[in-house]
């Protein structure tokens, strides 16, 4: 079976195509497709942009209002996939198994996010796919001006909006 692909249509910037690794990250893939197919990501923003690190989105609407999410999923960071440049991983809180809808695209090789041990400290962040086209769009997002909005730092000055996410 070929790996599923998802297009993220970014308003004014272009399209990012993600290929999901259904074999190595089955739960993340199923979870991400679930949110894509129910339209969760449509009109959400990349709300946390740190150049040289990662760009994070999928949890907020313009105006920084947080969207409701479903149950958290198991952390699949022990699947051997690395947080390399242009890979996509699930965001979470400090609880390793707390990922819901938010994800981030690595814009550097972030070795320190990789799985080291099945502990609070060592779980790492689960990579479940990679960008197969639209690296330039990712670079553009990483390059936008950011500031602080409310309790959030590193928020783009101009909203970076995912117009729609489409499973191919």
């Amino acid at each position, binding site marked *: 079976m070929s790996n599923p692909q998802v297009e993220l249509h970014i308003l004014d910037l272009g399209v990012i195509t993600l290929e999901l690794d259904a074999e190595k990250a089955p739960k993340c893939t199923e979870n991400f497709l679930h949110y894509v197919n129910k339209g969760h990501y449509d009109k959400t923003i990349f709300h*946390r942009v*740190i150049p*040289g*690190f*990662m760009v*994070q989105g999928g949890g907020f609407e313009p105006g920084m209002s947080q969207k409701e999410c479903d149950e958290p999923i198991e952390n699949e960071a022990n699947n051997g996939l690395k947080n390399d440049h242009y890979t996509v991983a699930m*965001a*979470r*809180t*400090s609880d390793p198994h707390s990922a819901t809808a938010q994800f*981030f695209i690595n814009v550097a090789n*972030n*070795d*320190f*996010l990789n799985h080291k041990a099945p502990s*609070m*400290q060592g779980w790492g*962040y689960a990579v479940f796919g990679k960008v197969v086209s639209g690296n330039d769009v990712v670079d553009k997002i990483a390059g936008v*001006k*950011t*500031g*602080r*909005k*409310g*309790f*959030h*730092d*590193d*928020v*783009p*000055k101009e909203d970076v909006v995912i117009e729609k996410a489409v499973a191919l």
Partner: protein
Amino acid sequence: MTTPPLPQPVPCVQAPAHWQRVDFISDLHLDASEAATFQAWVQHMAHTPADALFILGDLFEVWVGDDNQDPFALQCMAVLKATAQRLPVYFMCGNRDFLVGTELLKATGMQGLNDPTVLDLDPTLRLLLSHGDALCLDDHDYLAFRAQVRHPDWQAAFLAKPLAERQAYALDVRQQSEARKQTHTNYADVDPAAACAWLTASNAQVLLHGHTHKPATHDLGHGLIRWVLSDWHATSQPPRLEVVSWLRQNAQSPTRGLCRLPLCQA
């Protein structure tokens, strides 16, 4: 006020194995009117044997934008550039110099740091680096001001003003700050519960920050420690000039290699 959530993942700098000494400084409040403090800084930057230097906010008394080319700003930039050619220099904004941007980083060769950032020094020590102002939860007035001036719209509007107008604003802020110092207002301190929450969320053992001008080492319990950097003031009696360093050779010591050292001179 409740603890601000720490966004995950937290950025991290991994110290290469060859780093033997790392210097941390903050709250120098460099200003053309404080020549002795500036000179002490110049000496330390030229002579520290550190393998890396981390500036954790308020290097400058005020920074009105990277386009500021007044003679003092140019002197500071030359020092930063010369140092960054000798060793990696990392820069985190404070509450005075939060308008430092990518242009200054590019011009000097410094690497920008997010607040907070983890510094992974060795298997026994993960340091959480922050300026510290965001954790002073009782300073309601300041936190409201911070939320205002860190807003991208405010910054864009401010930076669009002519340089002279921005400099006049900076002078105003400085005078207000001086006036506040004269009244001996007891500044708010870092909230211990918030510090613990950040450390736990980032799996770090030691929080290292400045901002409060209350250099000390606090045991937060649960094996967590808070190190506070000193501000710099060369003409105080005794002078307040100090750097916190991490020495790999002392990594097994009770302080895990952290210590306070006098400045380096020629």
